[in-house]
């Protein structure tokens, strides 16, 4: 990938829409001119902390930075403390938000292609850092596009330019790949906003033309399914950040007649594998990529990546490219001398008919696993009996507590403190 300058809008004609904003289309020519302006107008700093919520602004700032040799910093959290730490760690920076751009967004005449070198470092993304400081991961332009090309084969209908609505932020790897790399690679377009509530999702989809793709998380998808949302024709639904329960995927497919595809990815690599959730729990690695299964965590190899990526996840390989996730290194528990994976127990619990959502976790070291379960209409005995048929009795969760919803955070994960609180343990 050395020295190959690539036009940022190589897949778009100048008049093609790249962002849908308030029902109107922003064209490649307009965005290219705006990014060209910004490349000159941005403060003279090495790093650009790109906090724009508007996809249009995010894209313009991202391309302006990449074109002018700056690097976008994409923090996982907006918490004031996290941002302060980021500013300290990268003193040569400027911060760009929708507000700070407000007076500056001008639209000049198209001045010709905006080029970005494939080998250029364009962004640093950060792992959420549930333990310790956030870890930075380098993103090079060519690799972002190569990853998106592999995701495109799986997620999008072939030969169509799709219009995407995403409920995830552009600053997270999943959002960056689906709302920026994938759009630029395929010549598609993205909706400017980030809808949250089901009615917002419906409105955002209604405001863009077909073929429509909804990029979301299990938490948002569940809310839309429970609201029995009436949506305009949907081509695809994409979900990531946490495992999607199969009944939820089935309900979504039945409700909107669109395929639901899941991405298995990580901040370090972006998307790595996909599955259509209703077809089974096996994942298929991206083209040219494979997983090496190890007891300490799998290793991801991809011909499009500069180096193999060690993962925290444990997997069970059918072939080097087809696998099931069985847990996370460190999520193996030992009870009475027997070993099991919490993720595996969660998966089995989720598979019990009538269970909508569930998580198995360890309230304290050496204790029995406990569970929070969303399963209106079935009894604790039914669930325990179903599990007892599959796992050793010591791994049948106790207490098994029924809740209306799991305590998920913004990225769909279940923080330990919230699990303990929901269980009633202090």
């Amino acid at each position, binding site marked *: 990938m050395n020295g190959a300058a690539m036009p940022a809008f190589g897949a778009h004609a100048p008049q093609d829409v790249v962002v849908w904003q308030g029902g109107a289309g922003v064209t490649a020519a307009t965005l290219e001119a705006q990014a060209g302006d910004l490349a000159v107008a941005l403060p003279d700093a090495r790093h650009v902390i790109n906090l724009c919520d508007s996809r249009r602004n995010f894209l313009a700032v991202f391309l302006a930075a990449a074109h002018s040799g700056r690097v976008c910093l994409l923090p996982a959290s907006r918490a004031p403390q996290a941002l302060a730490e980021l500013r300290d760690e990268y003193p040569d920076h400027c911060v760009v938000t929708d507000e700070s751009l407000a007076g500056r967004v001008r639209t000049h005449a198209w001045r010709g292609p905006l080029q970005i070198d494939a080998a250029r470092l364009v962004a640093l993304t950060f792992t959420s850092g549930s333990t310790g400081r956030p870890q930075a991961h380098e993103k090079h332009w060519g690799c972002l596009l190569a990853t998106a090309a592999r995701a495109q084969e799986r997620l999008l209908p072939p030969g169509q330019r799709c219009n995407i609505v995403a409920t995830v932020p552009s600053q997270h790897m999943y959002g960056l790949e689906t709302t920026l790399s994938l759009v630029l690679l395929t010549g598609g377009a993205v909706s400017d906003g980030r809808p949250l509530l089901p009615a*917002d999702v419906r409105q955002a989809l209604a405001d863009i033309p077909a073929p429509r793709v909804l990029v979301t998380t299990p938490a948002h998808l569940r809310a839309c399914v429970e609201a029995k949302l009436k949506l305009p024709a949907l081509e695809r639904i994409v979900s990531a950040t946490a495992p999607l329960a199969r009944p939820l995927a089935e309900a979504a497919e039945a409700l909107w007649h669109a395929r639901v595809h899941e991405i298995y990815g990580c901040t370090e690599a972006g998307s790595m594998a996909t599955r259509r959730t209703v077809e089974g729990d096996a994942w298929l690695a991206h083209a040219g990529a494979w997983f090496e299964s190890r007891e300490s965590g799998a290793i991801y190899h991809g011909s499009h990546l500069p180096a193999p990526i060690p993962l925290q996840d444990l997997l069970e390989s059918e072939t080097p490219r087809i696998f099931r996730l069985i847990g996370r290194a460190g999520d193996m528990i030992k009870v009475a001398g027997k070993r099991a994976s919490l993720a595996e127990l969660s998966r089995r619990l989720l598979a019990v008919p009538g269970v909508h959502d569930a998580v198995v976790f360890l309230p304290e070291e050496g204790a029995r696993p406990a569970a929070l379960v969303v399963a209106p209409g079935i009894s604790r005995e039914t669930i325990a009996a179903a599990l007892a048929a599959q796992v050793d009795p010591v791994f049948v969760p106790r207490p098994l507590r029924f809740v209306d919803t799991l305590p998920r955070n913004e990225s769909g994960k279940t923080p330990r403190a919230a699990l303990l609180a929901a269980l009633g343990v202090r």
Partner: protein
Amino acid sequence: MPDSTATLAQTGNEAALAALLVDALNLQDVKAADITPTAPLFGHENGSLGLDSIDALEIALAIQRKYGVELRSAEPDTRSAFASLRDLAAHVHGRLDRG
């Protein structure tokens, strides 16, 4: 007593909504009656309930189920409606009254 009591006391509508929030969000450490009607629901300021956007999803669903009112965060008045228990109750009942 001065005005502060009136500010802090929940009205009947607010109390019902507070119970709904505690139930929908599984706020086990929070008693519905203890939610200050004017305190921020979201964010990390002092006195805030500290809710996040996924909580907003749950709240919207619970409100739709119980009151049949569909919330949209894209509407400016809904944004301000999520500011506090008092604002949310006023918004929901305002929508109910308008039919």
